[in-house]
Each structure stands twice: as structure tokens, then as C-alpha cells.
């Protein structure tokens, strides 16, 4: 009993000093996932980064170069579990080490063309100019680059690029990047606030534009914590999980940061721009590498027809990702696919490739097919279907020189942001370089901001917000069984809506239906059943929060897709199959009204410097 | 059936009873064994930490002598098996390395080169591969005597090198124990390490490991613990008193070499298998 009382006394003291814990919390802090000084509440961070993927950790290292700044990375898992880890191909940057004829201009042009001219060209120039330097820097940080004879890292050519410019570690470029950055963070003493699910960015002031800090749930204890910060960098990754099993993204790609950003007034830019990779396993969306088609695997429908002959007579399976993805979707839609529902697919036939070569060059593909689909690809075809691979859209980065959003003190970086570098379609190996370049930029930008500003947030408001979430936790987790649908039930319904009505192909009537369906789901979400009331590592509650975020993201995707009456890059409208530069050479900006919660769309012109839009042909 | 025997250092020294019982058992089973002439220590899982290539070359020499005898190699020690099989796996896989090592052998005046023609197998594996060897020979079935079958580490791991049965879920020693008429018991510590190789560097922890294994076998009601590895045997037998102290246990369990247990089932006496040379639980063995 006395222990409990002293616990409360301690928390009160803590609230007064710095970190804010929801009143009435009575759970002991378990372990060191949160730094001691945060627990004690005697720290206000200068730069608080949400997300521990490539962008987050790169930003942290940049910000921490200013030795007297207090920098921390908050993450809902532990570091190194991020989507960045999964990137395979490499990171682009013009260095000329493997091809001296490569130029920054060429990288710029490839990126813009790949992005179907929806890129802001000044941002792409900034990006391409710095991408090379970041590769050298990673070398100095200890990145295990595959080398060439002269001792330089080797660069290889990726799809859509006119020169080899992607540096890499084996086929695990992202994994090596994340671990290199993590080791640097450890040695440089960066604070990690691990296993804390970010719930809200707390704001105050008349116009609600004064940053207080971040509200999160410490998963270990169930305590709600408010961490005061002068600046926040949102680096929480993409939102592929709106398509749930039809994505190659990790479970954690649920758009948490985008929703938190929208809630404080940052617009969601180009949400409809989602990249679908053509060859995910039908069983679970896990990616079968691009090299499958490069090595000669053929796509066949249920009648055994090699249907790509119809859609791309010359290139056939070697046509670009979007063309192949659309072809597969069409075959399935028109009844020539195999299997039912979300698991429907077409055959990818490797038997035309000698078994020896499959073993040699497609070991990973063979392994995944065997494991998840039970198929030996040297003997029989495996079922595949498009899978959501990357989110081009994200929180608007208002100034790419600093990484800032339009809300003072809040910065964005990585897949959760939209710079716009990728436009309507991202090129291979540009995502890791984006993460490095703009992680670095945002880290510098936030650090500069923190140096110029004093903390002017409201600790009271931070405490109120904590209490609000605590109440919500108690209410949500105490709902009785049968009070409504379960979280996975609502999620599956959402995925059905998103996959069939706002997936590879979109059209007006279906998108309208999707809007209605999502509204109904949002209603159901309000009284859904979570089923776990424990305060200790309540992953059921975490999934409830993530679902709430995914529903909002879905809503924005549908709204953006509905308004964009053209087809461009990752966005394909059946009713508007052509690109329309006259009307849509502009970005969608979806704002969330902070009072009503309604979404509203605005548009912003694409920045063109010297590359006039042309038809995109490969 | 003839094997080139790699006895290993401890069979020449502290575990001499393992050698005498092996000879007697092999004779009864009709397995001909001939010691590899002038063999050297396998490196005892330590030499490669000093100089990897030297340890490899020494084992290439050992194997090449057996190859010249035209026999597969039989080992009776887990660590020797691992060291020799690791050397063989590396030399067989890597042509350049094999060439380098053969050059070393040649310029040092060793008469044979490593070819990769002799397989390396453990006494236990031979009995598992050829259960018929025991048919009609078990004159003294062990009558359901409860035995803890303790594999030790190096006969199971790493799987790629050792590759006999499933290293994560081995069952072959239990099978053999059953065949001998005894009853294998499940004990919690059956896959724990005895700690022999770290006895000096981490003595306190190793003694706890030793004590726990013996205590665990005792809790399971085992009347003896049997192991295919003389190093495990030495650790568990010689340090049994200290082990007991470390985990506050009263357990006294006879620790048998595999060939001793087989010998008892084949009709040899306790004395014939050299049980009198054991340090612990002298009066607890109710066999032979």
C-alpha cells in the first residue's frame, strides 16, 4: 500500500518537473525502454523523433551533432524492426564510382520520369544533389557496402534508371542501413524511448499551433506519457497496411504519424499515390522479387494463357511494375484468375527456367514460394497477385531545405512524408536515399529550430491530453464482449473495401461506394470490441489504435482518388485512363478540419524547373 | 566392418576405461578397429582459437593417414568428432583451402595429401546406422533399468557439420538405450551443456551446469547417465561432488561412457568395463 502511495507521489512530482504522466497511473515502470531522465521527468527534448527506421535514426544522428541538444527517438517497437529493414535493392546516389558517365541531371530526370511528372522538380534536384554525399557518409559510418576492385563501394543499375547508381549490401540494402544507423545511435548515446505507441501530438494556444510534445502509451506499463519537446520529427513510415495482407509492408506500416500530423493541421499530400508491385504471393502479399520476371518467369491465367502478350506485346512480363500489376488485376477481375476473394491470383510459371538457374539466382523466391504457398517452383507455378509496396503520398513537407511541415516545430521525413520526390510512382532504390537525404535534412532543420526557440508549450495541456487518452484506454478496453464487431473484423471489411474499390484500379462509382462503406466502418469502430483490459503490453489496444489510423488513411486515399480524374503512376482510373496534365499536374492536399473532423481537398501546382511533361515510355 | 580409430587424448589418459571397454565391445560386435598411427590431438575445440589454419592442417594430417589406411574413421569423443568433421567439411567444400593445406602437409614432409575419401563417424552413430550389429548379442538385457541418455553438445551441433538425425530433436541414443533393454528417462537438463570446455574460465557457472545435469537425471529417477562423449563423462563424474555443492543437491548418479553401457548389455562385468576407475557414485550402479 505504502508503495502505491509513494508511486503516486512520485508521479505527481514528475508531472510538475517535465514528463507528464496521466494522473492516477499506478504501474511501476518496467525496465529501461524509457530513459531514466524521462521517467524522472527532468527533461524537455529539443528534438523528439517519432519512428526508428532509416529516416528517424538518420535524423537523430544529424540533430545530435549539436552536442548540447537533447535528442530522442521514440518507437512503437524496438529499433531495427522497421520497414526500412526490408528494402532489398540499394540506395541511389550519383558518385560515378561504377559509371563515370552518370550525372546528377540524369538521376533527376530518371526520377521525374519515373514519377510520371508529379514530382516537384526543385525537390528532386535537391535530393539528387545530396544523395551521393549521403552514400559516402554511410561508408564512413560503417555501412558494409559490396565493393568493387578499386576499393570503392559498387553501384548497380535498378529498374527505370539509366545508369548504375545504387549502392548496396547483398540483397539486404535496407537491413544493413538500419543496423549501421542503429549502431551509430548506440555509440553516440542517442536516447531511445522504445515500445511507446505514439497517440497524439499535443498542441495548445489560441490557434492551436503551439507544440507541447508527444502523447504516447508506454506499452510496458500501460502508462500514458507526455514527453515535452521543442520540435518533433515525424518519421513513422508508410501506410501499406490499409490493404492488410495485400501488401509487402510490415505490420507496423499503419500510417500513425500521418494521422497525428493531419490532426494538428498538416495536409496529407497525394494520398492516392500508392505503388502496387505486381508479384506478391497470393497467400499473404509477401513480395517475390522483380528478378523473377527478369529471369524469365511467365504469367499465366487460369486457362494457361500467357496474358501479358495481350497487354504489352513486346515487353510482355518485362513491362513496368504498374503495367503488369494492372494486367493481373484485369485478368482476375474478368474471371480469368485462380482462387477466391482477396487471395485470388494468377500463375507465375518458373518451370520454363532451368531448375539449376532457379536454385542459383532465385533462391529466395523459391524459398518463399515453398514456405508460404507450399509450391516447388521448379515443378509447378505459384499463385501471385499485386501487392501494395510503397506509399508515395504522405505528410506535406513544406520546405525541403529544412524538412519542416507547415506547422511550426513539426518536421517530417521518410515514407510518411511527401516531399515530393517520388511523384506518382517511386523508382527502385530511391526510397533508401530519400530516407537518408531528408532524414539528415529534417534532423538539421529541427535542430536549428530548437536552437532558436525556447520551449513554450503547455505542460497542463500535455497532462490533460494524457488524461484524455487514459480515459479512452479505460473506456475502450473495458467494453464487454459482444458490444460490437472486433478489431480484426472491421479491419477485414476495410481491406475488402480498399482492395476492390480503391486498389490497383479505381472508378467513380466504386470510390463513392467506398466512401460510404468507410463511413459505416468508422461508426462501427466507435464501439468495437478490443478484448484485453490489461495495462501491460496491450497489443490488442495498440491494434485498435492502428486500425483507427488506417481507417482515416483509407478515407484520405479514397477522397484523393475520387478527385483525381486521370490516370498517373500508381493511380489508375478506369473511367479516366489517360494522364491529364492540363487539369491534374498538381498535388492533392487533404486537410482534416480540426473541429469537425471532415476532410477537405485542396490542390497545389507541381513545381516544374526544366523538365516539361512528356509521355512516359520505357 | 573395419574402422580407423581416432581415440583422442583422454582415452589415452584420464578416460582409459573408455578405451578398454571400447575394444572389448567392438570385439564382441565384430567391429574391427585399428588405431590411426601417430595421430595427434584434434585441437580439443581450443586450438583453432589460437591459429585456425594450424588446427586445420593438423586435422587434415590425421584424416589423411586414415585415408591411406583405406578406412572410414571412428571417433568416440564428441569434440574430436566435431573437430575432424569440421575440418573435413571445410576442406571438401573449398578447393583453394584444400590446396593450401595440402601444400603445408607436403612441404612439412607429411607423406599423404588430404583427399576426402574417408568418412568420419562416431561409435554411437555406427550403432544407430547398424542396429543389426547388436542382434543376438544382448545376453544381459538391462531389464528396464532407468538410464538418462545425455548427448552432450558437439555430437548434435552444428547440424550442417554433424548431420546425423535431427540436432534439435535427437532420438537415436534413446533408441539404442531401449534396444539394450534399458528405459530412457526424460530429464529437464538432457540438452544442457556440461561446460567442460569452460571449466577453467567460468568455473563457478560450469559447476552449476554439472550439478544441474546430474541432479536433473536423478530427479527423473535415472540409475545411470550415459554419454557418448568422454569429456562430458569426465566433467560429470570427476566434478560431481563440486557440482552437487554448487546446486545444493544430494544426487549421486553413475556417469557411464556409452561403450560401458553397451558392454554391460553384452555381458561384460562392471570391472571389465572399468567402472572401478570412476570417481563418483561407485556404489550406485545396479548393473553388471
Amino acid at each position, binding site marked *: 500500500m505504502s508503495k502505491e502511495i509513494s508511486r503516486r507521489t512520485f508521479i505527481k512530482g514528475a508531472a510538475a518537473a517535465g514528463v507528464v504522466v496521466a494522473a492516477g497511473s499506478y504501474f511501476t515502470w518496467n525496465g529501461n525502454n524509457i530513459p531514466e531522465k524521462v521517467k524522472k521527468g527532468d527533461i524537455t527534448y529539443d528534438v523528439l523523433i517519432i519512428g526508428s527506421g532509416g529516416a528517424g535514426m538518420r535524423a537523430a544522428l544529424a540533430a545530435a551533432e549539436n552536442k548540447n541538444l537533447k535528442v530522442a527517438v521514440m518507437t512503437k517497437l524496438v529499433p531495427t524492426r522497421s520497414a526500412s529493414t526490408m528494402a532489398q535493392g540499394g540506395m541511389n546516389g550519383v558518385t560515378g564510382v561504377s559509371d563515370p558517365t552518370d550525372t546528377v541531371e540524369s538521376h533527376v530526370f530518371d526520377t521525374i520520369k519515373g514519377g510520371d511528372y508529379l514530382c516537384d522538380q526543385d525537390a528532386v534536384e535537391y535530393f539528387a544533389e545530396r544523395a551521393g554525399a549521403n552514400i559516402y557518409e554511410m561508408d564512413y559510418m560503417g555501412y558494409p557496402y559490396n565493393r568493387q576492385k578499386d576499393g570503392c563501394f559498387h553501384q548497380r543499375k535498378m529498374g527505370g534508371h539509366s545508369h548504375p547508381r545504387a549502392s548496396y549490401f547483398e540483397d539486404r540494402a535496407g537491413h544493413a542501413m538500419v543496423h549501421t544507423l542503429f549502431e551509430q545511435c548506440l555509440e553516440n548515446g542517442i536516447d531511445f524511448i522504445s515500445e511507446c505507441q505514439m497517440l497524439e501530438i499535443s498542441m495548445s494556444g489560441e490557434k492551436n499551433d503551439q507544440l507541447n510534445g508527444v502523447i504516447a502509451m508506454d506499452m510496458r506499463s500501460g502508462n500514458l506519457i507526455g514527453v515535452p519537446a521543442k520540435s518533433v520529427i515525424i518519421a513513422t513510415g508508410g501506410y501499406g497496411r490499409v490493404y492488410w495482407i495485400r501488401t509487402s509492408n*510490415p505490420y507496423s506500416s499503419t500510417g500513425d504519424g500521418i494521422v497525428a500530423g493531419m490532426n494538428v493541421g498538416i495536409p496529407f499530400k497525394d494520398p492516392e499515390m500508392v505503388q502496387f508491385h505486381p508479384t506478391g504471393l497470393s497467400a499473404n502479399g509477401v513480395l517475390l522479387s522483380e528478378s523473377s520476371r527478369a529471369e524469365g518467369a511467365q504469367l499465366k491465367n487460369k486457362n494457361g494463357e500467357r496474358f501479358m502478350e495481350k497487354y504489352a506485346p513486346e515487353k510482355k512480363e518485362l513491362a513496368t511494375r504498374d503495367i503488369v500489376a494492372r494486367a493481373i488485376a484485369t485478368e482476375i477481375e474478368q474471371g480469368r484468375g485462380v482462387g477466391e476473394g482477396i487471395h485470388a491470383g494468377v500463375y507465375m510459371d518458373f518451370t520454363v527456367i532451368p531448375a539449376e538457374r532457379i536454385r542459383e539466382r532465385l533462391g529466395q523466391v523459391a524459398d518463399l514460394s515453398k514456405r508460404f504457398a507450399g509450391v516447388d517452383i521448379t515443378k509447378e507455378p505459384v499463385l501471385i497477385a499485386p501487392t501494395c509496396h510503397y506509399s508515395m503520398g504522405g505528410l506535406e513537407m513544406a520546405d525541403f531545405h529544412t524538412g519542416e511541415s507547415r506547422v511550426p516545430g513539426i518536421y517530417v521525413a521518410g515514407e510518411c512524408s511527401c516531399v515530393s520526390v517520388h511523384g506518382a510512382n517511386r523508382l527502385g532504390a530511391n526510397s533508401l536515399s530519400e530516407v537518408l537525404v531528408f532524414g539528415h535534412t529534417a534532423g538539421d532543420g529541427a535542430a536549428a529550430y530548437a536552437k532558436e526557440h525556447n520551449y513554450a508549450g503547455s505542460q497542463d495541456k500535455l497532462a490533460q491530453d494524457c488524461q484524455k487518452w487514459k480515459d479512452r484506454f479505460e473506456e475502450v478496453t473495458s467494453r464487454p464482449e459482444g458490444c460490437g464487431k472486433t478489431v480484426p473484423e472491421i479491419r477485414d471489411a476495410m481491406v475488402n473495401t480498399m482492395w476492390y474499390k480503391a486498389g490497383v484500379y479505381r472508378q467513380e462509382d466504386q470510390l463513392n461506394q467506398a466512401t460510404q462503406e468507410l463511413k459505416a466502418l468508422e461508426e462501427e469502430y466507435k464501439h468495437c470490441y478490443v478484448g484485453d483490459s490489461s495495462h501491460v503490453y496491450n497489443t490488442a489496444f495498440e491494434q485498435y489504435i492502428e486500425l483507427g489510423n488506417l481507417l482515416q488513411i483509407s478515407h484520405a486515399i479514397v477522397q484523393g482518388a475520387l478527385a483525381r480524374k486521370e490516370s498517373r503512376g500508381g493511380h489508375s482510373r478506369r473511367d479516366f485512363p489517360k494522364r491529364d496534365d492540363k487539369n491534374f499536374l498538381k498535388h492533392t492536399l487533404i486537410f482534416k478540419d480540426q473541429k469537425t473532423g471532415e476532410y477537405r481537398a485542396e490542390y497545389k501546382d507541381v513545381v516544374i524547373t526544366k523538365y516539361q511533361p512528356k509521355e512516359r515510355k520505357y | 566392418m573395419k574402422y580407423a580409430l581416432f581415440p583422442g587424448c583422454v582415452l589415452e589418459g584420464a578416460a582409459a576405461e573408455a578405451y578398454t571397454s571400447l575394444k572389448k565391445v567392438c570385439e564382441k560386435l565384430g567391429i574391427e578397429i585399428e588405431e590411426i598411427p601417430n595421430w*595427434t590431438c584434434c585441437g580439443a575445440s581450443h586450438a583453432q582459437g589460437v591459429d585456425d589454419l594450424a588446427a586445420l592442417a593438423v586435422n587434415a594430417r590425421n584424416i589423411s593417414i586414415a585415408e591411406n589406411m583405406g578406412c572410414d574413421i571412428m571417433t568416440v569423443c564428441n569434440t574430436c568428432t566435431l573437430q575432424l568433421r569440421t575440418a573435413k567439411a571445410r576442406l571438401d567444400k573449398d578447393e583453394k583451402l584444400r590446396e593450401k593445406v595440402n601444400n603445408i602437409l607436403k612441404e612439412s614432409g607429411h607423406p599423404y595429401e588430404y583427399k576426402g575419401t574417408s568418412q568420419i563417424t562416431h561409435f554411437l552413430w555406427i550403432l544407430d546406422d547398424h542396429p543389426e550389429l547388436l542382434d543376438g548379442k544382448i545376453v544381459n538385457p538391462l531389464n528396464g533399468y532407468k538410464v538418462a541418455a545425455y548427448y552432450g553438445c558437439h555430437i548434435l551441433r552444428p547440424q550442417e557439420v554433424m548431420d546425423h538425425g535431427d540436432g534439435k530433436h535427437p532420438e537415436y541414443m534413446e533408441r539404442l538405450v531401449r534396444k539394450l533393454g534399458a528405459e530412457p528417462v526424460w530429464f529437464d537438463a538432457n540438452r544442457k551443456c556440461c561446460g567442460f570446455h569452460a571449466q577453467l574460465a567460468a568455473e563457478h557457472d560450469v559447476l552449476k551446469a554439472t550439478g544441474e545435469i546430474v541432479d536433473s537425471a536423478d530427479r527423473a529417477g535415472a540409475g545411470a547417465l550415459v554419454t557418448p562423449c568422454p569429456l562430458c563423462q569426465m566433467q560429470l563424474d570427476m566434478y560431481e561432488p563440486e557440482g552437487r555443492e554448487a546446486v545444493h543437491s544430494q544426487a549421486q548418479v553413475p556417469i557411464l561412457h556409452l561403450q560401458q553401457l553397451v558392454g554391460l548389455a553384452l555381458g561384460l562385468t562392471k570391472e571389465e568395463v572399468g567402472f572401478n576407475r570412476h570417481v563418483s557414485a561407485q556404489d550406485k550402479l545396479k548393473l553388471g
Partner: protein
Amino acid sequence: MDVKLRIHRFVEDKKWVQDYTLPVTVGMTVLEALTQIKEHQDPTLSFTCSCRSSICGACAVRVNGNAELACEILVENLMKRYDTDELTIEPLGNFRVIRDLIVDWDPKYARIKKIKPTVHPKAEFSAEEGCKQSPEEFNKFKKLAGCILCGSCVSECNKNSWNQDDFLDPFVFVKAAKITRDSRDKDPKEHLKAVVDAGLWRCFNCQECTAKCPKGLDPAGAIEKLKEATFKMGLDDNVGARHAKAIYDDISDSGTLDESKLNIKSEGFFAAGLRAPMALRLMRVGKMNPLDKHPVNKEIDTIRKIVKNAEAASKEEN
């Protein structure tokens, strides 16, 4: 066909084993099974996962006593291996458990910090122009760069199971081996010294780490590489190193181990003297006779040459 999963639960200081039965489908991994249970049977079952393609390291658990990545191991294969329709699932061993299958990584990160886990580049390199390294130099550590920090290697580590305070996790040794073998680093000794201080020689050599690594990294081999490096860099003044050296030297001295002298060489004469009761015990049963003269191999000259020539060749290599 159904499988029964016996899952070790731990919630707010309560511990129990809970059984769940579910049908086994094609391609069903342990992670898929756990997810189905959480979604359809019991929302309170807790575990972590992220990438489900064996690269993020979030989902390692113990199945029937062996660490596995839940996202890559098929239930069907496990049932075959253990010849059973019941599988026991526990959190990783040698970790503190937070809830159910979720374990505490913080102490592990603190241990990684001990070895100074980054490359400290040589003076000729810079952040602006990067570093230089030949493909051969890269090959020396590239395999070790594949660690995904899943924790499987330490789950059944025998040394860690008895005492974690004076030893590291196998994955930390892997990281250390990676850096000390990276030609970009200016002073491998700095990392190496930290590793020796943190218990390098206390490894039991049980090979559990190598058996459990889902990425085939061979942490036990990495530990051997680190040991080898300590000799090359003169960090060999400790019991473990002296013991290894004594065994190594015996090969050149006589061809086989001279057990009666090993302890003296490893621990020094006086420390070994403390083991006198043990020696007496051994002499009593005839296991040790100090008067026996250790025999010398007839081909000792050849053996010595082999060791010398190999040493010369490995020096050349480094």
C-alpha cells in the same frame, strides 16, 4: 488436421500454460497461427512481429525448446519434426519476459554498447570521400553483417543461462567480430579489449548459438575468430587464453594433450595447486599419475613443421 499450441502465458505476474487448438493450413507459419489465435480465439495473447519475411527479427520465439523465427517456421514442418500434434511455444530464453511471448531488449542494447559497436575509421578516410576496401577485405566480415538482432542465438546459450553478468550475448560477439575484421577500422584492439573484458573466454562452446541462428551466421565461429585475434594482438593474458594456448602447444610438444600439466599452464602453478584435492581424487582411481611420462609422437618433427608452416601461411593471409 488440427494442432494444439501450448503457449506459455505471463500477464501481470500471473503465469500459466494455455492450450489453443486450430486447423493447420498450407503455408501456416507459427506467426500465422499466433495471429489467428489472437484474432479469432483470444485477443489477449500477446507477441511482437513486424516484417513476416525473416529480416526484422521481431518475432523469435521458442518452440519445443528451440528458438525459431515465428514468421518463417511452418507449423506443419514442426509437427513432422517432433512427430506430434502438440507444440509448446515459449518466449525466448535468457531474456526477461514482459508479457506472454514479448521479451525485454533493453539490457541487450546496453551490452552491445559495451563493445563500442561502430567502425572507427582510419585517418585516411573521411565522411566526404568515404572509405576504401577491397572486395577480399569486405568478404572477411560480410557474413557477420547479416545479423538481424532476433535474439535466437542467446535463447539456449548455456553460459548465459547460468550467469549473464560476466558474458555477452552471441549476437554481441558477432557484432564485435564484424567490426574487428572490418579493414576500415583503425584500432580493432579497442573493440577486442572490450570483448575480452566482457567475458570472451567464458564461452562454453556448446554451439547452441550457431545451431539456432536463422541466418546461418555461426556466432560460435565468430567467437573463435575473436579469440584468434586476441593472440595476434597480444590480449592473451588470461586463464582462458592460456588454456587454449597450452592445448595448442601440446600438439607441437608431444602431439597429444598432457592433462597433468594443462591446469598448471593455464592457471599458473599456485592456482592449480588449489586443485590438489581433485588431483588426489583422480590419482586414487588411477585416472592421473604424475609419475607417468607423457609419450611423444613418433612423427613429432613433421607435426611441428606443419604447425610452423601453417602459422607462417596464416600470418601471410592477415
